C-alpha cells in the first residue's frame, strides 16, 4: 500500500459539499455514453483524474454507482482493478502501480473493457507457445 495511506488523516466533509456537485455532470455524461453504446456500439472513456472534483465528489460518485456482478484483477505493471458498477456496462478501471498507488482512474462505458480482452499480438503468438508445450510433452520432458 502507499506510504501515504499510513498517515492518519481525518477528512472533514464540508457542510456545503453538496453545492460543489461536480459528480452530477459525470452521471449525465455516463447517461449519454450508455445511449451511444446501445445505439452505435461506440464505447466511452471518462478520465476521472481530468475532472476538477472537490473533496468527496469522487467518493460520492463511486458510491452512487455502486458495485455490480463482475470484478477482475490484472497483474501487469502493478495491479489494475476492474469492476462493473451497479449500472450495467459502466465499468470502473483503477490503474495502480507496483506499490499500489493509483496512476489513473477511468470510467469505461462498454460491454467489456478492452484491457480485459486477449491482445491480438498475444493471440497470434499463442499457437506457437502451445506447440512448444506439446513438443515438450511428446518428447517426454516436463512442461515448462
Amino acid at each position: 500500500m502507499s506510504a501515504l495511506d499510513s498517515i492518519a488523516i481525518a477528512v472533514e466533509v464540508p457542510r456545503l459539499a453538496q453545492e460543489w456537485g461536480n459528480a452530477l455532470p459525470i452521471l449525465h455524461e455516463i447517461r449519454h455514453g450508455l445511449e451511444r453504446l446501445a445505439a452505435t456500439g461506440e464505447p466511452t472513456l471518462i478520465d476521472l483524474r481530468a475532472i476538477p472534483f472537490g473533496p468527496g465528489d469522487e467518493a460520492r460518485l463511486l458510491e452512487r454507482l455502486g458495485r455490480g456482478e463482475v470484478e477482475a484483477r490484472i497483474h501487469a505493471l502493478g495491479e489494475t482493478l476492474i469492476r462493473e458498477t451497479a449500472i450495467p456496462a459502466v465499468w470502473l478501471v483503477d490503474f495502480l502501480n507496483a506499490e499500489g498507488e493509483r496512476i489513473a482512474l477511468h470510467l469505461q462505458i462498454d460491454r467489456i473493457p478492452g484491457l480485459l480482452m486477449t491482445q491480438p499480438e498475444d493471440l497470434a503468438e499463442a499457437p506457437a507457445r502451445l506447440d512448444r508445450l506439446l513438443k515438450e510433452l511428446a518428447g517426454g520432458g516436463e512442461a515448462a
Partner: protein
Amino acid sequence: MATSKTLGESLREHGVSRRGFLKFCAATATMMALPPTMAPAIAAALEKARRPSVIWLSFQECTGCIESLTRSHSPTVENLILDVVSLDYQHTLQVASGELAEEARLQAMRENHGSYLVIVDGSLPGPGSNMGYSTVAGHSNLDILLETVEGAAAVIAVGTCAAFGGLPRAHPNPTGAVAVQDIITNKPVINVSGCPPIPTVISGVLAQFLTFGKLPELDAYGRPLAFFGQSIHDRCYRRPFYDKGLFAETFDDEGAKAGWCLYRLGCKGPSTYNACATMRWNAGTSWPVESGHPCLGCSEPDFWDAGSFYQALSVPTVDSTQTLGLAAAAGVVIGGAAAALAKHGKTKAVADREPVTVEQLEQKL
C-alpha cells in the same frame, strides 16, 4: 546512450507485457492531459518511437524540480518514462563524477547530434554578469548551456527558475539571473514552469515529445497548452463560491471551514495557469487550494516579486465591496477582470518594490 531499440521493445525488455504496455499508454494519456481514447494511438506511436538521448543540466536551482520528478511516488509511469529515455547526463543522479561525468555529456552530444533533448532546471547568470556565481566543472553555466544546446533538437526548461528566472531573478537579482529562453533563441524552448512543476506535467511533456515526435502547442509564455491552457481559477472546485461571493476572510473562520473561495486570502488562481486543480499532488491526493491554502501563482513569471502571497492583489486598487458584489452577479466575467486586476497589481508590486537591506530587516524584527 540512446540505442536503436524502440520504446515498445525497451518496455518489454523491462518485463512489461502487452496489457501492461496498454496500461502504460492509458496512464500516459492521463499524464498528457489527452482524452483516454487516445491510448491506442499512443500505443502505436510509442511502440515505434526510438529512445532519445536526454542531457539534463542543473544551474542555479534548489534540486526541488528533480526531487519532484524522482521522489513523487516510485515506481511510476513517470519513472518508466525516465527509464525509456536514455538519461545520459544529470549530475545529481548519475554515478559518474568529475571528468567522467562531463565526458558522458560530450559523448552523448557527439553520438546523438541534432536529435538529443536538453532539459534545464535552474536559471543562469546572464551575459555581463559575474559568471563565478554558478559554475559546473569550472565552466560557466552560460558556456555549458550554449555548448550543449548547439546540437540539440529542443530544450525543455523545467521549473520557474529555468523558465522565467524564478527565485534567483527576484529583485534585485544579485547574480544577473536570466531564463533559458533569454539565451536560447535559435532552438525550440518548452517552458514547464512551477516551483516545482507537477511531476506528471514534466513527464507528460517528455511523453508527448516521445509519442508524437514534435513540440506541443505552446502558450504566450512557451508553456504547453495541454497543461497550462486554463487558469487555476477556472478549474477550481471552489469557483462556485467565488461566483456566489462567498469568501474565507481568515484561515480559521466559518467560510474557511465551509470550503469557500480563498480569493480574499491572496489566492493567485485567477492569474495563474497550471494543472494543479486536476492533476493534483502526491499521487493525486490533493493540491494547495484543496488543503485550504491560496495558490501562490508559482508557475507565473516573477511570482516572487508580485507582492504578498496573502494579499488579494485587486483589493488595494478597487473597492473590494464593489468587486465582490459584481462577482456575485457575474462571476465568469469578473473572473477575467480579477485576473486583469491581479496582473495590474502584480506589475505595480514589481515596479514599487524597493531593495531591503539586512539592517532594515533587523529593525523590523
